[in-house]
């Protein structure tokens, strides 16, 4: 690896961090603008005015906003996410468990979905415009067009209620073995796979087809290589950059956008955690989760950029 590529990568990382800092300001300002009263929201309809007044005093909402921002940022840099307003629990300890669950589901979904999407994409190119291509495109497009809650309920109806193969409630907890966990998340992982498959698959197909027009593919064909070998060995490496971008976007979706699936399958991930705290106006939690979501998005996109740089021979070997 040469210094040029290293410099490019360093630039990307620096830009990413700068962006994250800017996002942290936006998150902080945004949460300050939320309507409603924190104390009232925490205590709900059955709050007595005394209790509301006491809580408000205790939360110390009288300090100026900029001071609270630097307190908050300083805490985060030292790994302290603060304390939840609503139940006084340390955010870090309750949040990391949720993050772990979300990553677990995202990881196993990705393990299934990404290779499957790329493989199906390669097959679709190999049999372009013939029935396998049409069948693959048709089914995956149908799956992506259906709302995810519908796919979820459909899978629950078939595999949980009718055949009783998998549980409809995917609650995972610390006492479970890996096998039990995988069994528990089978249905949400399948739902998510169906949701993200089409996007990655079609991108793979389009990117490879684009490369397939190049003269060097024609040379490979004239050399007498088999079609699948040409696609896999010669065309795909040059189509990696756009495919990686789409894969990363979908991975980010798996982490930050699966609230609906979490609710349907009662999966204790970050989405539900965030929603509960938004409705209670638990600002420190909302800020912490927002920052984690932003970090995931920025991090994965940065990774996609770096992979694109590293896999691009023109950047690796500049003239």
């Amino acid at each position, binding site marked *: 690896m040469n210094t040029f590529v290293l410099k490019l990568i360093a630039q990307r990382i620096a830009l990413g961090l700068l962006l994250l800092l800017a996002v942290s300001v936006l998150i902080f300002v945004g949460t300050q603008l939320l*309507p*409603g*009263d924190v104390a*009232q*929201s*925490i*205590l*709900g*309809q*059955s709050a*007595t*005015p*005394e*209790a509301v007044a*006491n*809580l408000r005093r205790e939360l110390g909402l009288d300090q100026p906003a900029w001071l609270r921002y630097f307190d908050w940022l300083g805490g985060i840099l030292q790994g302290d996410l603060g304390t*939840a307003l*609503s*139940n*006084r*629990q340390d955010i870090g300890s*309750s949040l990391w468990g*949720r993050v772990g669950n979300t990553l677990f589901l995202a990881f196993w979904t990705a393990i299934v979905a990404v290779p499957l999407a790329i493989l199906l994409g390669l097959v679709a190119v190999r049999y372009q415009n013939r029935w396998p291509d049409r069948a693959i495109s048709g089914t995956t497009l149908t799956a992506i067009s259906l709302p995810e809650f519908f796919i979820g*309920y459909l899978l*629950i*109806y078939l595999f*949980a*209620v009718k055949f*009783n193969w998998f*549980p*409809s*409630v995917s*609650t995972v*907890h610390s006492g479970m073995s890996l096998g039990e966990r995988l069994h528990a998340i089978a249905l949400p992982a399948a739902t998510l796979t169906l949701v993200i498959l089409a996007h990655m698959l079609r991108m793979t197909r389009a990117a490879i087809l684009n490369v397939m027009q190049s003269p060097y593919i024609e040379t490979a064909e004239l050399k007498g290589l088999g079609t699948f070998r040409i696609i896999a060995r010669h065309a795909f490496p040059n189509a990696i950059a756009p495919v990686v971008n789409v894969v990363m976007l979908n991975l980010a979706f798996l982490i930050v956008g699966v609230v609906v699936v979490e*609710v*349907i*399958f*009662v999966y*204790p991930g970050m989405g*539900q*955690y965030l929603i*509960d*705290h938004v*409705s*209670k106006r*638990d600002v420190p939690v909302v800020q912490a989760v927002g920052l984690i979501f932003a970090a995931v998005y920025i991090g994965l996109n940065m990774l996609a950029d770096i992979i694109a740089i590293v896999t691009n021979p023109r950047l690796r070997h500049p003239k």
Partner: protein
Amino acid sequence: MHPSLKTLTQQATLGQLSRRDFLRRAAALGIAAPFAGSLLTSQAFASTATPQRGGILKAGMQGGESTDSLDPASWTSQVQHSFGQSWGEALTNVSPEGELVPRLAESVDSTADAKTWIFKLRRGVQFHNGQEMTAADVVATLERHSDEDSQSGALGIMRGIESIQATDTYEVTIVTLEPNADLPFLLSDYHLMIQPNGGKDNPAAGIGTGPYKVVEFQPGVRQIAERFEGYWNPDEYGFADQIEIIVINDPTARISALQSGQVHLINRVEPRVVDMVQRLPNIVINNTSGRAQYVFPMHCDTAPFDNNDLRLALKYAINREDMVERILRGYGSVGNDFPINKAYPLFPDDIPQREFDPERANYHYKKSGHNSPIVLRTSDVAFPGAVDAAQLFQQSCAQAGINMEVRREPGDGYWSEVWNKQPFCASYWSGRPTQDQMYSTAYISSADWNDTRFFRDDFDTLAREARGELDQARRAELYRDMAMLVRDEGGLILPMFNDYIEATLSNVGGWSANPMGEMMAGFALSKCWLAS
């Protein structure tokens, strides 16, 4: 009803009498078998089968969030309520029939002025940490909830108390500021779980005296408790080896979890799907008419609602039967514009039902002289179907020539910005243990949540008198007068009382309806059992 028959019915309902014994003894009282049989629902006898011990009883419930805590002072939702009733105990309970049942207190006595109350505690009751429960723990608990800084949900109850003292190792004496005949009922509040040293050391430790002890507490996900072997009353509570609440906030997911046997009980079956769920094999629907109510409060001190003719016009312009049919799908009963129904002790049952009467509504509307549109604010969070209910109200108003404008508010901030702030909106109440508690919470002039801005000295006087009255007949009369005042001159439009609709698998035994609240008033997990 013959008093002995009432006792028999209660015994049978509690599972202390078999059906045959019940009918035999009822016959001895001179009661014909068909009538005696009709006194009991089939559910009552389902529970007379001998409870079986063992198994893991699981409930899938709505109403839990990741913000929940084990500190009883902070409880607001159904999951916390049900879990709390499994591991904690209050001094008293209130039976489904509205009678006082001793729990940690063995007996209750008061002086004639209903100001000094003496609670004799049960001896030999153990906390889950092995300590014995004594008067000191009870006093500390009540003190903690009385603290103005406690943010306790029971603070309103505790404010009427002047002093709490341990007069003996097993005796607590409570003096109230004003005579209060309801005090022992109020201390059944689910926030007032007796904790070692009142929970002052660690309010969220989850240590109580209940039939189950907390094993795992994951707020908003699941909560597990196992049977406490040292429990003092194992014949009545705590049949399953372990209980578990899984928080399932999505209604469809709850039903599919029940259908696939992952849970044995669920709460909040939506009225619109009840008929379908009822047809599923192995599932039993239990609906309980309780005290919960859907309401439209008007501020009596704000124009145009400061005119009683306008308030009456709106009260006559609402079609209650239609709302029960459409919003609750029949799972509920009509209200009569005062916040009390037959689930309360001393319910005045001779007050005429207010009917939908467009002509009369129009008469009062014209008399009020008001003619610009009346704004009704509503939101999905006010109660399930609140937006539809407001539109039905709008249509029935139109029939009476009243122009109503329905304004839909965002769910966010509805309870802080709209309810109890705007002069006319949709809301709900879950009811209170006694009539006095309901009226003192929302209808007397000094009430914290006087959401109808009902400021009436004559009403306050009646409430104070009723509160201190130990003669039940006189008390019932006073409550009737109070109900009439709220109904005819207050700002409450109460179209319907909603049922609790819950479902169990058919192998769950011991279910009995309890109008005090959802899931058998929170006792479902400690009173139900699994048939093998």
